[in-house]
């Protein structure tokens, strides 16, 4: 008999919330901590836009369109953090200590169990801030997105989450083979750093190949660029092609990372006695 996945998902969310609310002071501090990082980022871009009207020449990424982009990046990253980050951080420990055995024995999909056991509720503070930043930025734009663009924005935010999650689960799979992978998680952080900027800034003999690689080979540039474009200005034909590609890429990434994860699990050798 298959478990009711939605009920399990709801129970995971409830348990995490109960745990967070047990230490309310700590929860508030976590919210303030994650918001402080966001304010630092915002501070940097406010300083930057004191010196320039836009990033690059004729790219359209002026102050307010860029803040739409920043809000989008925040949405995607905060959602990844909310659903998956804590679980993926713990995966390496589970493998190293042999406690992964207990997850494998449970009558539920292992990837589902390991990916969603704990929710990081404090990340939602960033989601709220991102919503405010997005609303303020859209208010300053002359262009008004259509309701369809709004709906597609949500769809492509989810595609962005799927792309980052796939990368994360792929790196998590590698830890089954390596045992220790602290540098791999650093790698995740540094690689996703590329996705935090508009793709137009990657120009020139080194920038263009980099942009192509991070668009088509490891498509992390699509994570924020596609949804942000939907709201920042009227969508053009090449943007539709990019959006279509982002949709397909996120589906392929989910399937490929799942295959890799189960291949890794097949190679898992328990560490317990």
């Amino acid at each position, binding site marked *: 008999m298959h478990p009711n996945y939605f009920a399990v998902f709801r129970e995971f969310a409830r348990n995490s919330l109960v745990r967070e609310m047990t230490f309310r002071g700590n929860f508030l*501090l976590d919210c*303030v*901590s994650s918001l*402080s*990082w966001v304010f*630092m980022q915002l*501070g*940097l871009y406010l*300083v*930057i836009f*004191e*010196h*320039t*009207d*836009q*990033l*690059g*020449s004729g*790219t359209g990424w002026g102050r307010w369109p860029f803040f739409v982009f920043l809000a989008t990046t925040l949405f995607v990253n905060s959602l990844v953090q909310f659903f998956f980050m804590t679980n993926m951080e713990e995966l390496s420990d589970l493998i190293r200590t042999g406690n992964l055995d207990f997850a494998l024995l449970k009558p539920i999909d292992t990837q589902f169990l390991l990916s969603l056991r704990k929710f990081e509720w404090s990340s939602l503070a960033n989601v709220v801030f991102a919503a405010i930043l997005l609303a303020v930025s859209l208010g300053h734009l002359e262009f008004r997105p259509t309701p369809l663009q709004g709906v597609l924005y949500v769809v492509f935010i989810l595609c962005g989450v799927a792309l980052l999650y796939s990368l994360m689960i792929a790196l998590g799979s590698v830890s089954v083979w390596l045992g*220790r992978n*602290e*540098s791999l998680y*650093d*790698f995740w952080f*540094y*690689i996703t*750093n*590329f996705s*935090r*900027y508009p793709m*137009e*800034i*990657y*120009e*020139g003999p080194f*920038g263009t190949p*980099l942009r192509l690689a991070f668009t088509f080979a490891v498509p992390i540039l699509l994570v924020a660029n596609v949804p942000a474009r939907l709201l920042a200005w009227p969508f053009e034909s090449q943007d539709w092609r990019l959006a279509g590609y982002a949709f397909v890429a996120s589906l392929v990434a989910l399937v490929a990372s799942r295959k890799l994860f189960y291949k890794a699990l097949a190679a898992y050798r328990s560490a317990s006695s």
Partner: protein
Amino acid sequence: MTAVVADLASRCAVWWTILRICIEERLVYRGDFALGTLMRFLPIITQTFLWTAVFVGAGGPSTIGGYSRDEFIAYYLLTYVARAFSSMPGLASSIAAQVRSGEIKKYLVQPIDLLTFLFLSRMAHKLVYYAVATAPFALVFYLCRGYFEGWPDAPTLAAFVLSLLMSFLLGFFLEATLGMIGFWFLEVSSLLFVYMLFNFFFSGHMFPLTILSEPWRTIVLYQPLQYLAYFPAAVFLGKVQGPALVEGLIGQAAWTLAFVIAARTAMYYGVRRYSAFGG
């Protein structure tokens, strides 16, 4: 006289032993360490593209905040060197944690001074770091040599090295002082987080502090965090010269001395407040 020499020799032997043990401890995961160091340079790539886009977007001004585009990139690379000296990951939190858990009493009952032990341990960490990180640093600087106008003259280089060494001392004693607060407040993690944020922003790690508009620019150039990243990098690039350079080095020495005294004083009063129970 012989007794003094014998005492000094025995102290040196203890210090050497501590240093050697700490070095061996640090070398256990050297592969992970070297890979981690190389990856830490990856944000340089995005910073290069970001600031290139800023300069292009601004219509190609010769400088922003006194730095050309190439100097911005050189500046970022140099802050990596400065932070390799001044950053003290986990120092303050480990002192506070040892106070909280009671582990600190091993320093109180044994003839080892806590600050000396931590200093030597940190020195060992840094020595291992430089040994392992020199190759990735050299590779990145070689690849990015085009962003530098060449080596500075000997006095500037000497001032740069001096500022780096002082940034190590300042970083250590500043964090140690923060850790000592653990004697008064058992939980200092939020305070350390605030410090980390301030450090990130006001040390000049994110951008050269001179790009800030007034009055922020003047204010930030009076605070000690600038010596952890901004000042050494600015010295190397020749942005601080003549009397300003001498003043800067004196200012850095003064802040370092102030935090040496602060850490010692905090420890002196802290251990008198401290009480430990159980075995």
